[in-house]
């Protein structure tokens, strides 16, 4: 299942979040060679904060993390707005009903091919479910050459926001996907996902008056 982690419940997921950050270091820096910062021993950047929404796939809050992704509000500082705006023909889509998805991270050792495609489809279904809960209508993301074709045929309505550009050793392109019930249904049907994947466990409401 995919756990939705927000400021409200992140104290229940400290182990999972720590594991996600170490996996991000292993996958993005050690394996893919992205020029990211790991000077505290994990991959964590200026956009990681309590305001980010994390999706972490694990059988239980303390079970091994099998995949993760990060969702950022676009009315706050985010990657497409600040670092990848040049990938968009127009202004990067932003606003209270637009999220940006970043750091799609399969656990190290996830086999290439079908296992990864299936992980990505589950994560996209999880993003759509979460976005629907939060009233989000569009999700933007930056896709590399491996992600782009998968994102285009996974079942949601996705489109490109501009031409592909070189970024280090990769070619990347800005994309946006519409969030609606029909799209979610198509993603589920096309990828043999039988029902909702996400879970939200509320934190203790210790501050409730």
């Amino acid at each position, binding site marked *: 299942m995919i756990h939705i982690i927000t400021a409200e419940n*992140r*104290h229940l997921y*400290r*182990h999972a*979040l*720590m*594991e*996600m*950050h*170490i996996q991000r*270091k*292993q996958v993005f820096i*050690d394996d893919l060679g992205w020029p990211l*910062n*790991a*000077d*505290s*021993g*994990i991959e*964590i*950047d*200026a956009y*990681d*904060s*309590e305001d980010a929404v994390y999706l972490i796939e694990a059988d239980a809050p303390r079970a091994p993390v099998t995949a993760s992704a990060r969702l950022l509000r676009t009315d706050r500082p985010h990657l497409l707005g*600040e*670092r990848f705006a040049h990938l968009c023909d127009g202004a990067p889509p932003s606003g209270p009903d637009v999220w940006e998805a970043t750091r799609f991270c399969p656990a*190290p050792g996830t086999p290439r091919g079908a296992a990864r495609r299936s992980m990505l489809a589950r994560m996209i279904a999880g993003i759509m479910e979460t976005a629907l809960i939060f009233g989000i209508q569009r999700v933007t993301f930056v896709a590399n050459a491996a992600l782009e074709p998968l994102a285009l045929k996974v079942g949601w309505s996705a489109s490109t926001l501009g031409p592909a550009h070189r970024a280090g050793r990769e070619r990347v392109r800005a994309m946006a996907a519409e969030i609606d019930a029909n799209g979610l249904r198509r993603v589920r049907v096309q990828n043999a996902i039988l029902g909702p994947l996400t879970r939200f466990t509320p934190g203790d409401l210790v501050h409730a008056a």
Partner: protein
Amino acid sequence: MQARINWSFAEACDVSTSVEDVQTAFMREIRGLGFSFAACASHVDPLRPPQGAVMMVDYPRPWLERFSAKRYAHRDPVYHTAKKQALPFQWSDLRFRSSLEPDQLRILDEAASLGLRDGFTIPIHSPGALPASCSLAIGNDGVDPLKVRQAHWYAVYAHESARRILLATTPPERPLLSKRERECLMLIAQGKDDYAVSVLLGISEHTAHNTIRRAMKKYSVSTRMQAFVRALRGGEIRLEDVAD
């Protein structure tokens, strides 16, 4: 991500006249961040430290006894790795574990069985000091990843303070940092990378990078966090400079 300058911690360290006082202040902050145990120490036998060794440790006693009896200071994979690299590492990092010999993996297993299951080690390379590091163990309740950088600077600051007391020296007078260098170091301590620093200060990424390198060079240190701590301890970054 969140990291802030904790002035009362810095002051408590600065006015301490015994390593025990630094240790008390350090352990209080580290526990407050959620870590279960800490060892900010020179790489020596923890129960028979030589003169001049830093030893601020609250690890479980059974582990310290075992570590001492088996002379693990010579084989401990955490010490070995900390000696070779400048940046912190997490004990479950595959890159760290894959470089180890079987007997070293056994040391990690033994430590895990005595309550030191996972955590971070922050190498501390300081000219003229014994090899040292600060290890921070993560207990059952976990530690929020957003707290890691904060722990990093507490560790470096506490070690520097302990060294000051052991050597009975005052912070060395160093060439003053430029305003730009100070600004860069403050942002670095908050977790900003070169790009974020360049945007916030309206300079190029290249300039930001070189400015930080220059500050590190002035202090002869190997990490950005050490440069920040030196600047803070030397009074180059002051409370009134930081608009929180």
